[in-house]
């Protein structure tokens, strides 16, 4: 047995902008053990429910994460709506679905870019981000914010999308899909990408299930869990099938996300076609009294907002479980047995978002 050494990885690392720290125990170049630690950027956002009114907290919830911001606001709003028995108008549900899927598109394109960068494919990184820009432009045109949309509120949405804009979005979707397929083709069929990713840190289905993996990480191992199947917002009307791969390696995790791009485009198209007329919000009266676990499928997996109201305009407690937290145990399982040079790629393959994990 050769001598063991410990190499620190992060919280500042050139390939990973997320502040997670891993102590990698190496034997020569081979990882044999890993000790993760987080806790560098706790902001105490859950505590703020005590100081902000429940309707205002949407803005705070939205700022938990810079990528799935809309979905945090959605998850929080749905939770409060459930506690207060508010029925959201159909048009608001459809709009929420469109913005959720736009967020998923830009999140996955961002991840594909970072992943390509992590494996040293600089050109692909730039092309992914170029494509992502067109999604951000649509978000800015329809909500007023590229990253923080600020359109979700308790009881509906704050902005409508006019028919003209919807038609324009529908027209541009075809070109966008063509570009996405060109890009996805490189990720799925390029020889060097395959060589780098196939067979790297395989997670069998049982392990993924037992360790509670979430989102694309679980689906890449054949666990067909996607919270959108429960039909919140307009997903129930639009028909939706989760994207599942079975190989469980880095390539499968990449393939799930590429194919989710196509399924998101499909959902947006159907949501635009089936967009009902009507109001976009209802008036919120009273205060929340009760508790609820609200769940939404984010690009990285399922997010859970636990909300408890006590009949005042401030909630008594909020607790948020983000998908990255669920994926850290599986990450610890993924790393032993791989080369040090593959560590960045494998860490990126769970799409870590530490800022929202620590809130």
């Amino acid at each position, binding site marked *: 047995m050769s001598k063991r050494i410990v190499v620190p990885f992060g919280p500042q690392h050139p390939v990973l902008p997320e502040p997670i720290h891993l102590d990698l125990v190496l034997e020569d170049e081979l990882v044999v053990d890993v000790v993760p630690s987080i806790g560098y950027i706790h902001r105490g956002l859950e505590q703020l429910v005590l100081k902000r009114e429940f309707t205002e907290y949407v803005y705070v919830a939205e700022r938990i994460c810079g990528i799935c911001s809309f979905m945090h606001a959605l998850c929080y709003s749905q939770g409060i709506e459930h506690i207060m028995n508010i029925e959201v108008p159909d048009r608001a549900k459809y709009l929420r679905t469109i913005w959720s899927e736009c967020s998923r598109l830009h999140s996955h394109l961002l991840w594909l870019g970072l992943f390509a960068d992590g494996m040293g494919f600089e050109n692909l990184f730039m092309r992914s981000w170029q494509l992502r820009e067109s999604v951000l432009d649509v978000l*800015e045109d329809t909500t007023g914010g590229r990253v923080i949309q600020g359109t979700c509120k308790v009881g509906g949405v704050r902005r409508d999308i006019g028919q003209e804009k919807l038609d324009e979005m529908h027209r541009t979707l075809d070109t966008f899909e063509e570009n996405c397929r060109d890009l996805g083709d490189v990720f799925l069929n390029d020889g060097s990408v395959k060589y780098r990713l196939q067979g790297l840190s395989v997670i069998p289905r049982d392990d993924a299930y037992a360790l509670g993996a979430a989102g694309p990480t679980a689906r890449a191992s054949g666990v067909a869990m996607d919270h959108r199947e429960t039909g919140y917002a307009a997903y129930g009307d639009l028909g939706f099938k989760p994207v599942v791969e079975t190989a469980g390696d880095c390539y499968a995790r990449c393939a799930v996300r590429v194919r989710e791009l196509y399924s998101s485009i499909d959902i947006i198209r159907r949501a635009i076609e089936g967009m009902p007329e009507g109001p976009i919000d209802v008036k919120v009266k009273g205060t929340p009294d009760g508790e609820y676990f609200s769940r939404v499928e984010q690009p990285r997996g399922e997010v859970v907002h636990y909300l408890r109201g006590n009949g005042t305009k401030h909630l008594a407690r909020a607790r948020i479980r983000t998908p990255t937290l669920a994926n850290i145990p599986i990450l610890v399982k993924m790393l032993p047995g791989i080369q040090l040079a593959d560590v960045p790629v494998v860490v990126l393959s769970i799409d870590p978002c530490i800022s929202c994990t620590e809130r």
Partner: protein
Amino acid sequence: MGLFKMTKTVLRNLAGGPATRCYPAVPARTSPLTRGHVAFDPATCRSCGICSRRCPCEAIRLDKEAKVWEIDRMRCIACGDCVEGCPFESLTMEQEYFPPVTEHVVEHYTITYVKPEKPAKKPAEESA
């Protein structure tokens, strides 16, 4: 196949020009809805205080006595809630982002709105 794809991408990139822009020489892309920063019109504000109550960041401070309206630019997150809530349209959301600064910026405005004189009841009396 691969070579064909690559040539297509290369040609598209050559013909398409740069995907980025020379910001700040070329202004950033905005849309009519873009939430840049809040602008205040002291001539129409009637000191009702709705904006400061709605603001989730406590960025707005209103002193009714001194007729001073303040906005802390470093606290404001440009959510637009105050703009939606203002009943007198004194607040507007401008498209330009607030430029980066090195010092704390709190803007003070003196409200210049003057309550119009109540129209005298004379005409009513005359008609009566």
